[in-house]
């Protein structure tokens, strides 16, 4: 392999943003016809690196070589013209345009007077879609396509140019198994044509299935490259997090109290059906399942953001009706939401105001908000949660992900809830803060909270839960105790394999 010319080579790429060194001298090489997996925890710099490659960001230092030719990529278009195509994780399509127009976005074929050459456009894009075995035609409006089919449109874009390297950023996140195998066929096809492929994913099994080599990033710097055939998951994980993951670590269960929350036969349209579970105070119940399995929707129902179509919710044995977050808060339920930036925080507000937001109406002296009371709460939880911020006046948007998440957690702890629901507690948070937040969740349970943790990360669920509830397509498939649960039976459960449902 080494005597070939690399399709793509990066050398010493440095990229800084105000206050952050996102990439710190990253180098790596993709050979033609190779699937090169890029791994790293959230926030390790993968996305930034890919944006540099895709021409969206310009590196502060370092060089990019395409077939050993030093190249500057000032824009995504330039990158594409030079044969580097980026398939985005967040779909970047225009819903009101046809599939064909999206495939050739920015490069519509022209006739005289700036007219679009529709014949050529439809013929060319139709051919590409056929090659991808898509079940829809080039004239289909993208807005009417499923997410998987939209992804196909993205991929089709990559095939419009003579690509030297194609970057896939988490391409399987929203695909079904059947769609995945089509994707893997496409990747194999590209590979056989000598295209270099960069494949970013969190899913180990996929990576080991399709990649030739694996490079690992951690905290913005390059940690090494492994040949897939000669390594194993442990070694990769170790590189990713800097130490080996102690999966054997078992929870020490705390003292369990009463049933704080009980859910009976709860359903919400097609989102989830007939859900039954209970959470005791002093206990952490983990909800594990694929995105769309209905976990977040249950949390949103408990927090009054969705109306259940059937079933009941009991707090301390009494049935309650929760129509709004205000009701939920009054009943002692708190939700640390899934999307910190969209749902958890007002980014333009300062740390203190964010933290006291749900109770600002009660922190008054006369008609006015009491500065002293607010600062007291902020100081208390800043110290308790070890939030690192220059002061309460700091805008929350300027904090790191981990500290932002702690502000959200502090916001809800300060409400002294009985039931605390934490949805994706460590999404987009660096490794160090992750462990801190996990310990924090355990401690909260110990001090008597009933905690629900929803997560897509298996190690996380295993690390924090006293019990694990596995969900699949809107139903609870199985419940595990901390002793029973392991990676194998959990994976089986959430993929819909039910053989041992009676447990």
């Amino acid at each position, binding site marked *: 392999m080494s005597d070939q010319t690399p399709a793509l080579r990066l050398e010493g790429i440095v990229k800084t943003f105000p206050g952050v060194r996102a990439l710190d001298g990253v180098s790596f090489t993709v050979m033609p016809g190779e699937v090169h997996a890029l791994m790293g925890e959230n926030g390790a710099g993968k996305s930034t690196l890919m944006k540099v490659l895709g021409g969206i960001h310009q590196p502060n230092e370092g060089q990019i070589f395409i077939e050993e030719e030093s190249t500057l990529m000032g824009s995504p278009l330039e990158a594409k013209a030079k044969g580097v195509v980026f398939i985005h994780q967040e779909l970047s399509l225009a819903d009101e345009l046809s599939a064909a127009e999206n495939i050739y976005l920015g490069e519509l074929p022209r006739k005289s007077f700036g007219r679009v050459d529709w014949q050529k456009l439809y013929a060319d894009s139709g051919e590409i879609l056929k090659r991808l075995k898509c079940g829809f035609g080039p004239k289909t409006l993208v807005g009417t396509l499923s997410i998987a089919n939209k992804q196909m449109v993205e991929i089709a874009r990559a095939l419009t140019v003579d690509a030297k390297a194609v970057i896939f950023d988490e391409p399987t996140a929203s695909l079904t198994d059947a769609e995945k195998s089509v994707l893997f066929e496409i990747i194999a096809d590209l590979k056989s044509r000598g295209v270099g492929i960069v494949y970013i994913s969190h899913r180990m099994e996929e990576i080991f299935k399709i990649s030739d080599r694996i490079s690992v990033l951690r905290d913005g710097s390059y940690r090494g490259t492994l040949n897939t055939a000669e390594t194993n998951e442990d070694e990769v994980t170790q590189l990713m997090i800097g130490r080996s993951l102690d999966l054997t670590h078992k929870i020490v269960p705390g003292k369990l109290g009463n049933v704080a929350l009980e859910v009976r036969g709860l359903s919400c349209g097609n989102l989830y059906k007939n859900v039954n579970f209970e959470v005791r105070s002093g206990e952490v119940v983990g909800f594990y399942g694929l995105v769309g399995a209905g976990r977040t929707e249950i949390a949103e129902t408990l927090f009054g953001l969705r109306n259940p179509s059937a079933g009941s919710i009991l707090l301390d044995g009494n049935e309650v009706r929760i129509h*709004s*977050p205000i009701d939920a808060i009054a009943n002692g339920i708190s939700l640390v939401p899934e999307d910190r930036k969209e749902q958890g925080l007002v980014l333009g507000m300062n740390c203190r*105001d964010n933290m006291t937001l749900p109770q600002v109406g009660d922190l008054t002296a006369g008609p006015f*908000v009491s500065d002293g009371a607010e600062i007291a709460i902020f100081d208390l939880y800043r110290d308790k949660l070890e939030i690192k911020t220059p002061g309460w006046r700091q805008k929350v948007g300027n904090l790191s992900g981990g500290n932002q998440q702690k502000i959200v957690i502090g*916001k809800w702890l300060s409400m002294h809830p009985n039931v605390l629901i934490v949805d994706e507690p460590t999404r987009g948070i660096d490794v160090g803060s992750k462990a801190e937040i996990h310990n924090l969740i355990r401690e909260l349970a110990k001090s008597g909270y009933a905690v629900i943790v929803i997560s897509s990360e298996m190690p996380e669920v295993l690390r924090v839960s006293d019990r694990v509830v596995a969900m699949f397509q809107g139903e609870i498939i199985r419940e595990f105790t901390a002793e029973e649960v392991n990676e194998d039976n959990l994976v089986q459960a959430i993929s819909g394999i039910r053989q041992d449902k009676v447990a």
Partner: protein
Amino acid sequence: MENQRLKSLMNFLAKQGILVAFAIFMIGFTLANERFLAIDNVMGVIRSSAILGVMALGVTFVVIGGNLDLSVGSMMSFSTIVVLDLHDKLGPELAIPVMFLMTMAIGAVIGILVGYLKLNSLIVTLGMLSAIHGLTLTYSGGKNMDIADKSGTWFSVFGQGTFLGISVPIVIFGVLALILSALLGKTPFGRKVYAVGGNNVAATFSGIPRARVVFMTYVISSFCVATAGLLQASRSLGSQNTVGQGLELEVLAAVILGGASLLGGSGTVIKTAIGVLILGFIQNGLLLVGLDFYVQYVVTWAIIVLAVWLDIAAKRGRIWSPIA
């Protein structure tokens, strides 16, 4: 190093740019005409800005809450016509509260449409602009409205009277600015307005009643409009149906000039008041240095674009937009 300096200068300008601009204008006009800073001239400017100013104070709440209000101009015409009409029918003691109730009822309707029904505020208030104009014309029968006995009513006190030697419109504008500034800046309600405007999803997820907060911003805005209508009616004791026409955009200009973002979540009442005064002083200053009255519009255009440009330039750290 040089870059750092430039950046901190830009930051300062972005944060306080509007004050800097204000200072420059004031100095410039004072040098050009010494009468500019004379106390009676200054008071005159504030007094003539008061009506626009009172409306801008209310719209500030709406804008910070993340919405727009294009209906305040035609709503102000409505208030003016109604209070003038009722003055002769019910007497001023009753006419004023009834007019306030009617105007605030319209504000409440907008509040329900935008807050509870979540309709786009630009289009709702655009529709209301037209609808309220129709309502006013229907009410007045298309005729101008005048108070029968202009010299025999105490009603003129709001627009023409003085209080401790200060013109009443100035007092009302000033007191309202202070009260509303405290309401927005110091109370839980104000905090909720900022939260809803800054990120309405996160606000909802924090148990803030988004719909009620938005509703209240429109009620406050309509209260201010009613006050402005009162000032207008009391000043002239007679009015056309279109007295407030076009004011909605000037009001918005003042609010933007005061630094409120149209996306919501930022701005203050006091800065809006400053924005109003800047418009007033520029208008006055241009006249004093002998320029055509209408030059002020062109200058206002330039100032609005420059003020917002400066603000976003500082935020993105570069002068020209990155749009390719």
